């Protein structure tokens, strides 16, 4: 039992919910679907666009909390987290990260700066998420670097700036949720190896 393994055990237990990667896939699919629904390239009446996106998020939430929540409880067990250990993270998330993303999206939509500011905000948020939920999972760092790269694409004329950049950005974030979720799940299976040599127990 190495110190690294013990550190990993501590971090994964402390952040068990966030390492249940499959839970993020429905939300990623909903974001991708929303990006498609909001895309001006699709011949959908504007009045219908929101009504297409909304049910996708409702279904995603149900799949994530109910169906996949049960899957993880049955196959990986249950951990009751201790919210008092994460007061700072919760405060930063609600007071800085989420408002920051909303402000960045408003700046992109209303002011049309030369960079995609929202993409930078998402990059920072993803790296903060990775660091504050147990570290490791380097795919999120790669995703954050990708988002930084996306933010400067308008400078080269590859992507339109302002509100036109928001729809593809939502799609990219959705894709990050999906790929990140699959890789998180793989990482969790590696940390919590399947039980060998006897029948699986959901309880004792």
């Amino acid at each position: 039992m190495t110190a690294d393994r013990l550190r990993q055990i501590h971090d994964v237990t402390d952040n068990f919910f966030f390492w249940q990667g499959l839970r993020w896939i429905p939300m990623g699919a909903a974001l991708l679907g929303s990006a498609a629904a909001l895309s001006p390239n699709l011949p959908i009446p504007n009045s219908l666009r929101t009504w297409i996106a909304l049910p996708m998020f409702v279904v995603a939430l149900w799949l994530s909390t109910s169906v996949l929540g049960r899957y993880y409880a049955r196959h990986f067990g249950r951990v009751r987290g201790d919210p008092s250990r994460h007061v700072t993270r919760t405060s930063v998330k609600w007071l800085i990260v989420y408002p920051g993303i909303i402000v960045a999206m408003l700046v992109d939509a209303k002011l049309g700066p030369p960079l995609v500011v929202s993409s930078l905000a998402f990059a920072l948020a993803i790296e903060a998420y990775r660091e504050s939920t147990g570290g490791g999972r380097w795919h999120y760092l790669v995703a954050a670097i990708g988002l930084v790269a996306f933010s400067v694409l308008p400078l080269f004329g590859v992507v339109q700036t302002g509100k036109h950049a928001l729809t593809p950005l939502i799609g990219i974030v959705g894709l990050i949720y999906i790929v990140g979720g699959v890789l998180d799940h793989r990482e969790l299976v590696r940390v919590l190896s399947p039980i060998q040599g006897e029948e699986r127990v959901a309880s004792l």
Partner: protein
Amino acid sequence: MSLPFEELAELDRLVHEPARLAILTALAACKAADFLYLQRLTGLTKGNLSSHLAKLEDAELVIVEKEFVGKIPNTRISITKGGRSAVERHWKRLSQLRQASLQWAPDTP
């Protein structure tokens, strides 16, 4: 001053055993975890994990409670205040030993 190797013998063996150290480390990071989670974490068989938990429970380092989640029985394990301070003390001791062993050099004639 004692040698790092001599200090190793002073470690709490109940806590230092790898599976029990893993269990206590996990439980120190949450309010409670169930049997299945600890089994996947440690890779132990049901019998072995039960045996380790019984030792930790006897030493009043953990509390083992049976409950029902819906209609399914579930065993929930949480760490006691004493268990938390024991594992924190152990981690601190291990860290000190690591430092001491890095600085230690055998006497040369």
